[in-house]
């Protein structure tokens, strides 16, 4: 073991015997005027230190470069995630618009159907009304018996009136309910 009484030369010789090689800049501080055997040892230490440092430098550079690549990849990944999120938002917006369009189309079809029903119903109501009125008027002008026709006419008008109110009520109800939902 190296102790406090050892000179630098003795300490270096002991280290050499134990095959312990000095590392770091301390080796560079050792004077070149050391005895030949010690000098040879310190030179070997320097050589080994340089070799080890070069190797470490290469490894660290590689790690540094890999870290940089990973950081760049993380940035790209983040950008992709953001892009994907935006695409998802757009898709959701389009889907909502499509659903809204479909709903609107369905409502339009319903309104058209209701309109058709109302038109047909009105035609029938007016048609029946006009026909029975014409029949009743003709019978009256021709001085025929109008007892049955008169009762039928008034009954028919009552029924038609009730039915037309019922149709109007239904239409208004449907319209009110649809407006409330939208």
């Amino acid at each position, binding site marked *: 073991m190296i102790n406090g009484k050892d000179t630098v030369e003795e300490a270096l010789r002991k280290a050499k015997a134990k095959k312990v090689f000095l590392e770091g800049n301390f080796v560079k501080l050792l004077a070149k005027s050391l005895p030949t055997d010690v000098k040879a040892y310190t030179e070997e230490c320097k050589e080994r230190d340089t070799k080890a440092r070069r190797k470490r430098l290469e490894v660290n550079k590689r790690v*540094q470069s890999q870290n940089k690549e990973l950081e760049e990849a993380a940035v790209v990944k983040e950008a992709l995630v953001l892009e994907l999120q935006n695409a998802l938002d757009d898709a959701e917006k389009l889907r909502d618009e499509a659903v809204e369009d479909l709903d609107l189309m369905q409502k339009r079809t319903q309104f058209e159907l209701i309109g058709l029903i109302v038109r047909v119903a009105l035609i029938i109501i007016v048609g029946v009304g006009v026909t029975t009125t014409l029949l009743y008027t003709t019978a009256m002008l021709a001085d025929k018996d109008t007892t049955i026709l008169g009762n039928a006419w008034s009954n028919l008008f009552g029924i038609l009136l009730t039915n037309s109110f019922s149709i109007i009520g239904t239409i208004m109800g449907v319209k009110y309910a649809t407006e409330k939902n939208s």
Partner: protein
Amino acid sequence: MIDSILLVDDEDLFHLVFEDACSLLDMTLSLEALNSSDEADKLFKQWFEEGPIEERPECVFVDLNIIGSSFDGIELIRKINSDYGNGVVIGIISSSDDNQEIEKAKAVGAQFWIIKSDEIEPRLEDFLKDYSGYEKKTAPFKVYK
């Protein structure tokens, strides 16, 4: 050979790279590395106000963006040159080559700008050749690309 060097950089891995590169190029025997500009500021303030001034490094390499610090490398250079008596060779070592930042560094008294890359040794070698000029304050500001 430079008597002593101080590196201020937040990246520990770069401390090792820089230390090994300096050793292989025989740039210095004494290298200290700090992680933040606040630590460096504290040390320079202490050396300036209380001493000993001899403990101050001969040359300082500062990173531009030091994560986890209150201020960047340019502000540290300004503080060292304006508030703590100048007297050291100082410059930036950064992966950035932003002209605006380079001009800012030059304006606060940086003497050089070394761009960090995988091949740092050739740049440090060139820097070492110009070093005596920086020491005498005769060499113009230079960017090592």
